């Protein structure tokens, strides 16, 4: 059965800290991995990683994909209170357009 596991489940840091969120997956015929940010409302899209794009960066956020070891990490540097949210990882196989989501990592950034 396909499975996506995120760690840690929750994290509390101080402003300015750097955090690393993990996503490991066991998905048949992997095609793409997505990262989302969810702040008490709908998830918002952050990054998509595929075999042709294994590293993405946007401002203080960056993500890499290791297709051999079947995991991805999301890094956030110089964290701010606005980064407080649940971060979701989703992995999709090449057919059926079905994505499997992890349960998320809850990040709290303290001033």
């Amino acid at each position, binding site marked *: 059965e396909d499975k996506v596991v995120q760690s840690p489940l929750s994290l509390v840091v101080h402003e300015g800290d750097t955090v690393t969120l993990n996503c490991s997956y066991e998905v048949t015929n992997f095609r793409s991995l*997505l990262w989302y940010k969810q702040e008490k*409302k*709908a998830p*918002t899209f952050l990054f998509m990683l595929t075999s042709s794009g294994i590293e993405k960066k946007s401002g203080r956020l960056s993500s890499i994909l290791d297709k051999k070891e079947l995991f991805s990490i999301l890094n956030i540097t110089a964290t701010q209170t606005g980064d407080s949210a649940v971060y979701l990882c989703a992995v999709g196989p090449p057919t*059926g*357009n*079905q994505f*499997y989501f*992890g349960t998320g990592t809850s990040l709290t950034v303290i001033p």
Partner: protein
Amino acid sequence: DAGITQSPRHKVTETGTPVTLRCHQTENHRYMYWYRQDPGHGLRLIHYSYGVKDTDKGEVSDGYSVSRSKTEDFLLTLESATSSQTSVYFCAISRGGYEQFFGPGTRLTVL
């Protein structure tokens, strides 16, 4: 924000009653999805559609049906609501099965 709306945004109903949730998009995207989000389970796919009148089941489809008679509308129906279907329901859209954009969500409570 992607042009996705969901209605109703909140609903309280009783066990055994039928319930229909509506997702409406203005983006003309081909793919539409219904997810439910529960604590400890993350986002789980209920049903998805890859075109008008073309739908398929997700991992938690039991007790749910869907219909898509127009590109812009995707309906989720609970034929006979149960307390286990109390959840937050998200609709999502996608152009080609990669990044998905989510609607604001519907909070459903079944008493």
